[in-house]
């Protein structure tokens, strides 16, 4: 990973507070992601990692703080704004369209790339048809890239877990995102599947220059992949820095080894 270009800050999150009732989920979180980097968020269960991703792509609206993406500062995101601005994501518990085929799932990821209006689509002629074909080709390229040709027509609900994760990554990639949010892309995988997924993440980052923010529990993977790591615990920011710094940070070690919180 030597010749990679890390650019300017693409996403900046400032002083985010998020609570559900009396539960404070995120407490004054600030961090940034630079163009082209692989940025990890780690922390014990319930640290607020997924909540932070949900704030970034607009599922949760924080009570305090701002989100700046590509220079636009917002109090909160809306999911379709996030998507149209170039943020795509996967989910911890796999949120695929289970009744649809792999190909259709990935085509759905291209939703925002397709522009013809309802009228042409309803008739399924003219520009709509050409557009459909064009996007179909893009979807096939992603299927090739992820090596899932064999399951193109299978309904994804029937696929094994590891493949479902791969299809979900494919759907996110189909949007040609600038920022890709991955919520535990390797959870529940065996070591071979993990290796494949790692390779895909590195390739995506390398070949397409996609900026990646990921949540992961496997420390080996995180330390290998990441340019920088943000550590959360109980909604608070414990540490932020390059893998080596984070690894040697005393409060991080305490959080993971379970020193009691007073």
């Amino acid at each position, binding site marked *: 990973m030597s010749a990679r270009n890390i650019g300017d800050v693409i996403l900046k999150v400032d002083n985010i507070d998020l609570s559900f009732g009396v539960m404070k989920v995120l407490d004054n979180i600030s961090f940034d992601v630079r163009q082209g980097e692989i940025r990890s968020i780690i922390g014990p269960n319930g640290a607020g990692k997924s909540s932070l991703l949900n704030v970034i*792509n*607009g*599922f949760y609206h924080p009570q305090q703080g701002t989100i700046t993406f590509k220079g636009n500062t917002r109090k909160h995101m809306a*999911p*379709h704004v996030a*998507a*149209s601005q170039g943020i*795509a*994501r996967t*989910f911890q518990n796999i*949120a*695929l*369209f*289970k*009744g*649809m085929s792999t190909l*259709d799932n990935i*085509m*759905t*990821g*291209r*939703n*925002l790339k*397709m522009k*013809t209006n*309802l009228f042409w*689509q*309803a008739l*399924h002629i003219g520009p*709509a048809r050409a557009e*459909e074909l064009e996007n179909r080709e893009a979807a096939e390229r992603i299927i090739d890239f992820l090596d899932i040709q064999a399951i193109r027509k299978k*309904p994804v*609900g*029937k696929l094994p877990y590891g493949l479902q994760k791969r299809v979900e990554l494919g*759907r*996110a990639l189909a*949007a040609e995102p600038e920022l890709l949010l991955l919520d535990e892309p390797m959870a529940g995988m065996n070591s071979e599947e993990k290796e494949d997924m790692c390779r895909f993440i590195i390739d995506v980052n390398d070949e397409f220059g996609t900026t990646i923010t990921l949540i992961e529990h496997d420390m080996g993977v995180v330390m290998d992949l990441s340019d920088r790591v943000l550590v959360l615990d109980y909604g608070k920011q414990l540490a932020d820095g390059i893998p080596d710094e984070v690894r040697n940070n005393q409060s991080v070690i305490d959080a993971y080894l379970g020193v009691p919180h007073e």
Partner: protein
Amino acid sequence: MLFFIEVALSGLMAGVMYSLVALGFVLIFKASGIFNFAQGVMALFAALTLVGLMEKFNFPVWLAIIGTIVVMIALAWLIERVMLRHLVNQEPIILFMATIGLAYVLEGMGDIMWGSDVKLLDIGIPQGAWGWLWDQGIYVEKLELFAAGTAAILVIFLAIFFQKTRIGRALRAVADDHQAALSVGISLNTIWVVVWSVSGIVALVAGIMWGSKSGVQFSLSLIALKALPVLILGGFTSVPGAIIGGMIIGVGEKLAEVYIGPIVGGAIENWFAYMLALAFLLFRPQGLFGDKIIERV
């Protein structure tokens, strides 16, 4: 033999009429997982609006139809604004209850706007026996043939729309997983307006056919009940299923009435569909064409 064919054909045609109502249910269920109890009332409301525009404002037929389509789209928009938007991510049963409420509101609105007397609906669909078959000794209503043709066109149109277009895929995606749909940039609000508009237009078609056949009256909203077994047979998520389910029920109940009816004292037509549905629930709960129910644990 001729008699058998005549009975079967008339059943087939009656079935298509059920199918038209069932189609509206399928559309909304497919795209939002909501069982829309108000579908029958929407057909009534559409038919009432159409007759009202023709009678009270003397609109020509084509203008009245366009006017009614506009009203149905406005209605879809209103339903999204007032009802669905506030119920995002609620349990299906809550949404279902909301549609029961909607049914009463629409029925009341139809009554206030256009009155509750039975109205004649004549938009120039041919009536009476179809000559060619009549010469062979079989009686088939031209209106019912017309309805069958219309249903066929609707189905082809909808099938392509759902399978091959972006919005069709977006509709299916929303039905499958709200969050995931949002994350790929699908706007739930737009999708809901689209799908309720389309099912409003399907309701108009059903309303026209039923209205032309037996007058526009409030009992029209009860045909929704017959659509239920049709859905269970065909599968709640399948457009072709709605049509074929309707035909099976139509033919089945007519044949049962004529051939088995006399043995058990008649009136089979009233419950045959429900018995058939019950059998399906026992042995094939997803219906003939429904998506297989997949659950991983």
